[in-house]
């Protein structure tokens, strides 16, 4: 049998039981690889339940730095009998199946084209630990230990991690190290180590960090000066709130008085959460919420109020599989349209699309500036993949000289010196008007905020001409927004090409990897990653420049493509759908295959001599 051989380029998948304590061990595994200087990207594939169901942890190791998902498992670590049949089937020919051989495998599920590696995890734990809970928990460390031998993972690095993590409870270090040793020793004694899969220390991660997108988002909000967070728990956004609270406790408590320089309100539902955000920003604080698709639906009415009454608000939409409750623990990008045009009436909203934790941090901070500057809701469109998995990312960056752009807010002094204040007067001809915060001045600057039509002085009106003036001015802000949002990133192919690929958010790594795969097939493409909606002229130009643009996205209805043709009047026939919506992050292979298949110039290309 041909065994897979690979160095620093393979996929390891752990098949665990939910709630069995594997997360901690699995994380240590990924971290150890990262500390060996090898780019790594772990993904949790977990059920919508708390205990007892199958859960997987899939780690792609790729020294070139392709951090998107890749199909096919090179090595499976199987510790869940429930899913074992499926797990065996998932291994690539020539791959490795590491399992707990405390109990023997049924003959009929054994494949002869993969390598079976039995480690008696449970038996060894029963021998070495008395407490049944410890037996259960250290089983996970045993397989991590075995991996040090099986794929040459650096044991010293791993031990370091253990030492760090249990620095405050040092009595836990020896039993953890024992488990590692048990696994490693058994593997070495019984199998040729390493297998064909091998790690080698590199220096390929630079100053990068490993962090979940949601944690970076929360930090971004803290750095941007958000003082009010109102939210309602919903997977996969909950950890934004949790990280906000945890980090505020560290970073935002007055050391002398122990008092909080933030307000953290778990609302009674999503409608209340966004209502609180709107109330807080109306009152001059920076405030935000984090939610997912169902929350956006519930917030729709309020989003329209913020849009029309021109109240800043930052919303983090950590997208998950829809529609309805959908696949709450799977990833998609399915809320593009429902968020971009959220609420009844003529509305459109600014969206930002981060693709790394560093961007989660930066874009969340930017979102607050944009919301204040434009006096409108701004959405950070993350997703479960980015938000809830650890990602290798450039470090979070903050310029200490950075000043919050609070937009056009009048001070008492401003008001004192003004001749006339009209909340909705377009003084600067950019569509954005001056606002005041309650309590600013004893006699000047008060006005009435409402979701109904009103005139430039915030007075209620049913006059159609005034209404048109107001909504046209609001549309002018859309043009202003184009000059403020982050610009797209472009990667040009070496040679001239008629093809572009266009994508956003977490599709980034797979798309870039697909570029290389396509190159190998003789198809050159230029690439554009869009970072924001509304689209800037660069996006329009990019589409214009190409005969065909493949729009890559993770939803069924090609929603981002809809935005492109809607807002840019791009010809729909130029924009070819490349979609993945099974709830797993899109892979480079998938992108490549779809582009090859859907390529409208395919016959031509075939007849053309290609570079490869």
């Amino acid at each position, binding site marked *: 049998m041909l065994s897979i051989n690979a160095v620093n380029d393979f996929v390891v998948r752990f098949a665990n039981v939910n709630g069995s304590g594997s997360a901690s061990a699995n994380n240590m595994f990924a971290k150890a690889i990262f*500390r060996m200087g090898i780019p790594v990207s772990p993904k949790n594939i977990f059920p919508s339940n708390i205990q007892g169901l199958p859960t997987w942890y899939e780690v792609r190791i790729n020294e070139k730095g392709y951090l998107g998902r890749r199909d096919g498992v090179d090595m499976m670590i199987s510790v869940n009998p429930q899913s074992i049949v499926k797990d065996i089937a998932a291994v690539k020919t020539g791959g490795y199946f590491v399992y707990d051989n405390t109990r023997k495998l049924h003959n009929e599920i054994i494949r002869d084209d993969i390598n079976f590696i039995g480690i008696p995890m449970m038996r060894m734990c029963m021998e070495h630990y008395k407490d049944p809970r410890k037996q259960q928990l250290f089983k996970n460390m045993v397989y991590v230990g075995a991996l040090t031998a099986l794929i040459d993972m650096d044991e010293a690095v791993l031990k370091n991690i253990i030492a760090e993590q249990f620095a405050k409870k040092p009595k836990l270090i020896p039993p953890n190290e024992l488990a590692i040793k048990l696994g490693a020793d058994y593997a070495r004694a019984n199998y040729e180590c390493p297998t064909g899969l091998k790690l080698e220390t590199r220096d390929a991660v630079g*100053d990068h*960090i*490993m*962090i979940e997108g949601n944690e970076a988002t929360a930090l971004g909000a*803290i*750095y*941007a*000066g958000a*003082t*009010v967070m*109102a939210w309602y728990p919903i997977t996969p956004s909950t950890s934004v709130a949790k990280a906000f609270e945890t980090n505020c406790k560290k*970073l*935002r408590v007055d050391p002398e*008085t122990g*008092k*909080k*320089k*933030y*307000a*953290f*309100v778990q*609302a*009674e*539902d999503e*409608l*209340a959460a966004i*209502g*609180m955000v*709107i*109330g*807080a*920003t*109306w*009152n*001059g*604080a920076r*405030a935000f919420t984090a939610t997912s698709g169902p929350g956006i639906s519930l917030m729709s009415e*309020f989003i329209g*109020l913020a849009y029309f009454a021109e109240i800043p608000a930052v919303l983090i939409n950590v997208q998950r599989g829809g529609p309805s409750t959908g696949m709450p623990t799977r990833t998609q990008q399915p809320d593009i349209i429902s968020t971009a045009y959220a609420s009844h009436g003529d509305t459109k909203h600014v969206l930002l699309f981060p693709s790394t934790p560093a961007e989660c941090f930066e874009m969340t901070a930017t979102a607050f500036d944009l919301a204040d500057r434009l006096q409108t809701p701004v959405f950070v469109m993350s997703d479960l993949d980015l938000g809830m998995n650890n990602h290798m990312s450039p*470090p*979070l*960056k*903050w310029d*200490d000289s*950075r000043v*919050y752009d609070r937009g056009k807010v009048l001070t008492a002094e401003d008001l004192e010196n003004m001749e006339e204040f009209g909340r909705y007067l377009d003084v600067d001809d950019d569509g954005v008007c001056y606002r*005041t*915060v*309650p*309590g600013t*001045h*004893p006699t000047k600057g*008060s*006005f*009435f*905020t409402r*979701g*109904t039509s009103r005139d430039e002085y915030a007075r*209620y009106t049913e006059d159609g001409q005034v209404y048109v003036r107001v909504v046209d001015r609001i549309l002018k802000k859309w043009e202003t927004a184009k000059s403020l949002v982050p610009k797209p990133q472009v990667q040009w192919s070496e040679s001239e090409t008629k093809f572009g690929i266009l994508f956003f958010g977490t599709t980034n790594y797979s798309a870039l990897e697909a570029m290389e795969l396509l190159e190998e097939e003789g198809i050159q493409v230029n690439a554009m990653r869009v970072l924001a909606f509304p689209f800037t002229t660069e996006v329009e130009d990019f589409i214009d420049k190409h005969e065909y643009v493949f729009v890559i996205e993770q939803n069924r209805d090609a929603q981002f493509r809809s935005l492109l043709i809607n807002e840019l009047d791009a010809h729909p026939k130029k924009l070819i759908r490349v979609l993945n919506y099974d709830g797993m992050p899109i892979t480079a292979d998938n992108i490549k295959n779809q582009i090859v298949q859907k390529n409208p110039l395919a016959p031509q290309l075939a007849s053309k001599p290609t570079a490869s």
Partner: protein
Amino acid sequence: MSYIKPTFRHPTLPKNKIGFAKADYEGKISTLCAGCGHDSISASIVQACYEMAVEPHKLAKLSGIGCSSKTPTYFLDNSHGFNSVHGRMPSVTTGAYMANRDLIYLGVSGDGDTASIGMGQFVHAIRRNLNMVYIVMNNGCYGLTKGQDSATADYGSISKAGSKNMFQAIDLAGMALELGATFVGRSFSGDKSQLVPMIKAAISHPGFAFLDVISPCVTFNNNNGSTKSYDFVREHIEATAAIDYVPPKAQISVAYAEGQSAEVKLHDGSSIHLSKLAPHWNPSDRNSAVNRLQAAKTKGEVLTGLLYIDPESQDLHELQNTVGTPLNQMGESELCPGNEALDSINSSFR
């Protein structure tokens, strides 16, 4: 309602201790129906704020949607106002309060706005002991959408469409008591002598101060079926199916002593029985408030007065242990942990 309001103000108008005249607490001309109870409540709010010498810019007035929710336009023109969406004033107020603990928050709502679409937010504002005055202008119907029953409509009342309401009325004051509200009062729009001091007490209360104010809707009043008093109009209206005649009515007012009860005739000829808590009432005993309320209900009376107050009330910011400086007044220097902190955060993720 008249659409031209005299703007002439006598130069020697009396002023309160911060130098404002009562007129400085007034708002725009009301566009409510002539005689609407809500206008009387607005007048009491003006009176209370004037008497308390509230700084107008230190008060924020918020509301949902409905005739009642329009009233913030008709009082305190020098205060910031926010007419939000239907039923969601409590959440907007919560956010506003989180942002700035130093203002007075005066929320106005209707019985539709609170007892139906806004029920959840109402309950949770109580639970959080949000520091605000929450006034429900309770007319038992949806005024602005033309008179449908609200959830506080009495059992047996007849709606405009002619259907009898078969559901028990929700008693918002009773609910507030059950939910642990720290200040609960009930009054009648026409009883200024009771209402003004109650609003003042509510403003002073550090926590959620709830006022359920019965406020007759002159147009869609549906307390019961007696239509005698404007028979002709009814006939004219019913016959033509185009219902738009709203006869102008005088505002109802009532004065009666503590411990007494009074029968008040409504515009449609029906009446309600108000009963005022006795002067020796001890409002700091929640259980007896509940019992007394229940007893009045059984007698078919509407109990008015300050039902309950918790003198130990701790408001939301105290419960949350927030700093004293309003959060909306902090800038980069207080809020941003800076690059150094970020370096060590980055390190912790390596």
